[in-house]
């Protein structure tokens, strides 16, 4: 009994320290180090960047730049309308726009190819039976726009919500027409959201592998080249390309973070007459935005459901079924393990424990920025040192790249919980753990659910990283890419796609409903229509 008392005291004194240390240990060893392990190959011999590698890296950057520009140009008005205008069925509109976030990219790839590239797509409606675009850069751009658009809209929309509308009203009464208000007041205030959305879009486009492989045809982007090198067992070259992608991504992140602080928008130059006229064109802006969302984002996303519905075969082959099962098992295990560690990690970031909050926040950002095929390669190389079972390696891989998706919303939500509430609970006699369970947890529950769904769907749909790690075991996106590229795409595969699609839809709808309930509780004011 004496020794128990000693243990009790020890735990009381060091319990939370031990917990946080083990969380940090988990994060560094399982989540953070493996994705950047590939950097160690940079110093091996034979590091030559041939012309093929150069061309594909340049192509990747060109595509990412175009995609980011298009997304920002159309994402700005979309986010503005969503945040500031009263629109009917806003939950559904919001859900539709966010749908490509969770639909597995392999399914998106097929749907977009069917719409733009196949013989039964867009032009078929006009009686022409050839595809509009053949596989290549144009299709890659169209595909990337679809799945990066929600990132841009989401982060701009969130930033616009943060702006106190009184600022915009104040500018209006001071004589600024609405476009001038947007340029001189709103834009500077949500600039950071715009930039972080653009960074996300850029890096997602730069790094996407699986779906890109489906629509790339003969052209090779850098992530595809990594897969090609890996298949040829040329690890050094694959590592070289990965390193270039990782380093540019990190440099870009740093530059844009600096730019956010530096660049300011001049107010001295006002063009009241010209900008007053611009307001009249709002209707064209809105129409163009709606056409863009419908034609470029929504219809191509849904096309697989529309075109596949009449040739449904409710019999999934055993191979496909096995893959679906594997995918769900991996996503389940990865999400459960991540959730256990993401809660304390969210606390470390939000409450700046041990003054390491910003560091871990940044480390999580870096994982998001690493191109998935490079990430997969790195994880594969790292875990193969330990001669582990392949299924276990896949779970570890998925833990690593889906961790930030669970941590980020939780950390953001915890930092939004008033510290006074926790202090109140403590002074009313709650232990730290009890205070968390009874006060913090109910308040951050919507964020936890959001994190779980984002992490789970990310794990379920990730292709590039899995492709780079897996040898015998194939998850469902990997299998779909393989079938598609071998031209063995049949009704069973289409049915699988539609199934995954509907599943994503249900998940995102749950996510939206939870979010809405959370918002309704926290936000009482709502935007009003202005003149």
């Amino acid at each position, binding site marked *: 009994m004496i020794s128990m008392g000693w243990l009790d005291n020890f735990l009381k004194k060091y319990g939370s320290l031990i917990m946080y240390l083990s969380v940090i240990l988990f994060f560094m060893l399982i989540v953070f180090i493996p994705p950047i392990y590939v950097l160690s190959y940079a110093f091996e011999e034979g590091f030559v960047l041939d012309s093929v590698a150069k061309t594909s890296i340049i192509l990747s950057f060109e595509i990412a730049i175009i995609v980011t520009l298009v997304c920002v140009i159309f994402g700005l008005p979309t986010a503005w309308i969503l945040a500031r205008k009263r629109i009917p069925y806003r939950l559904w509109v919001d859900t539709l726009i966010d749908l490509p976030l969770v639909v597995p990219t392999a399914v998106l790839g097929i749907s977009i190819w069917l719409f733009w590239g196949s013989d039964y797509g867009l032009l078929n409606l006009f009686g022409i039976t050839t595809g509009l675009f053949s596989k290549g850069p144009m299709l890659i751009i169209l595909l990337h726009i679809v799945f990066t658009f929600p990132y841009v809209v989401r982060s701009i929309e969130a930033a616009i919500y943060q702006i106190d509308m009184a600022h915009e009203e104040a500018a209006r009464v001071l004589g600024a027409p609405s476009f001038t208000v947007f340029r001189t007041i709103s834009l500077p205030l949500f600039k950071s959201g715009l930039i972080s959305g653009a960074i996300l879009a850029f890096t997602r486009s730069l790094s996407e592998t699986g779906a890109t492989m489906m629509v790339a045809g003969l052209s090779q982007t850098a992530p595809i080249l990594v897969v090609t090198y890996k298949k040829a067992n040329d690890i050094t070259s694959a590592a070289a390309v990965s390193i270039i992608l990782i380093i540019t991504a990190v440099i870009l992140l740093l530059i844009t973070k600096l730019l956010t602080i530096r660049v300011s928008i001049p107010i001295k130059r006002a063009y009241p007459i010209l900008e007053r006229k611009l307001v009249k064109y709002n209707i064209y802006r809105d129409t163009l935005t709606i056409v863009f969302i419908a034609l470029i984002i929504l219809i191509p996303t849904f096309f697989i459901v529309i075109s596949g519905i009449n040739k449904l075969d409710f019999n999934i082959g055993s191979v496909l079924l096995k893959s679906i099962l594997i995918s769900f098992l991996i996503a389940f295990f990865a999400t459960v393990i991540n959730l256990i560690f993401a809660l304390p990690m969210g606390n470390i970031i939000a409450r700046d424990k041990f003054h390491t909050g910003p560091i871990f926040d940044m480390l999580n950002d870096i994982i998001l920025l690493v191109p998935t095929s490079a990430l997969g390669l790195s994880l594969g190389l790292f875990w193969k040192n330990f001669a582990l079972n392949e299924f276990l390696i896949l779970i570890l891989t998925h833990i690593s790249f889906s961790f930030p998706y669970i941590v980020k919303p939780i950390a953001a939500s915890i930092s939004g919980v008033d510290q006074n509430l926790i202090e109140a609970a403590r002074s009313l006699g709650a232990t730290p753990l009890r205070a968390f369970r009874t006060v913090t947890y109910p308040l951050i529950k919507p964020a936890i659910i959001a994190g779980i769904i984002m992490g789970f769907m990310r794990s379920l749909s990730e292709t590039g990283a899995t492709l780079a790690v897996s040898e015998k075991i194939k998850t469902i996106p990997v299998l779909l890419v393989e079938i598609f590229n071998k031209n063995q795409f049949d009704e069973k595969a289409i049915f699988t796609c539609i199934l995954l699609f509907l599943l994503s839809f249900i998940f995102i709808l749950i996510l939206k409903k939870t979010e809405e309930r959370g918002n309704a509780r926290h936000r009482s004011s709502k935007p*009003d229509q202005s003149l």
Partner: protein
Amino acid sequence: MPDIEVVNLTKVFDSVVAVDNVSFKISGREYVALLGPSGCGKTTLLKMIAGHYAPTSGQIFIDKKPVNEIPPEDRNIGFFFQNYALFPHLTVEENVSYGPIMRGIGTNNVEKIVDDVLKTVKLSQWKDYLPRYLSGGMQQRVALARTLALGSKIILLDEPLNALDAKIGAMLRYELVKISKKMGLTVIHVTPDQEEAMEVADKIIVMKKGRIVQFDTDYNIYNHPSTPFVAHFIGESNFIIAKRVSNFSAKFNNTIINIDREIKTENIVLAIRPEKILFEKKKQNNLEGVIENINFFGETKRFEINVHNTIISVRTSKYSGLKVGDRVFIHLPPEHIMIFENPEKLYDELKIE
């Protein structure tokens, strides 16, 4: 003369009626306080006049011209926001010059206007600072400077002194009135604080639940409140439920109370301000009770006296020797007793929200 008139103005949010069929007219150079409990529709009314909210129905006239269709940037109305709404990314100088620049005034003139206005609010040496480095009182003056720099003759102030310490607030009240009188401005000043309203305004509009209850001079609002709510919300009043005995007298618990005004209905509410009641026993209108509580206010004391289970408060500076538990006589002077009808509605009427 820049005057403001609103006719049958109504604003409905979803299904909540925020402003309910409001009409009034404010002449040029008048300083009017818009007074009412929070949530009564004051800010909504103000924002409709400025053009931020479109009215559900009704008309707004500025300078006798209808402005319903004119966007806020073309109404030329100065608006002071609750919590100031200073642009956080712009310096004090840039905040103040925003209005003149948007009006298309040349650079040289803008500089002169900004210098003048900043001098008026005594903030010239702070012009290069961002708002967040300034104290609350200074931010309030920047917001005022920004509003004044517009050069508009109509200024709408939305709870301008709300977020300030009582002392600083009291000082700035005086400044506000001085500046607006000097510049010949027409002002609507929204406040939930009756003392502030009495101090700054020529006239007071009292609002409750989206409707105007009374619009009159501060003297009349205090001495001739139109409803028990006004009597209760502005200053303090004692309410006594009584029964009519004759044209000029009523009965409260076997005591006959004589009144200077004519009583028209059977059941009435008598109201009297605490400072009008005297600790004396005269020929008539005397009540006997026990002191239950005493509050000290410096120059005066407030006594709560239980008269037949109705608490009557008395405020006076002549209080020598009285203490809790004492049995006292109080006298209600007939000329200070107000009469209201419908005692059964009194409780609902007095509810602030």
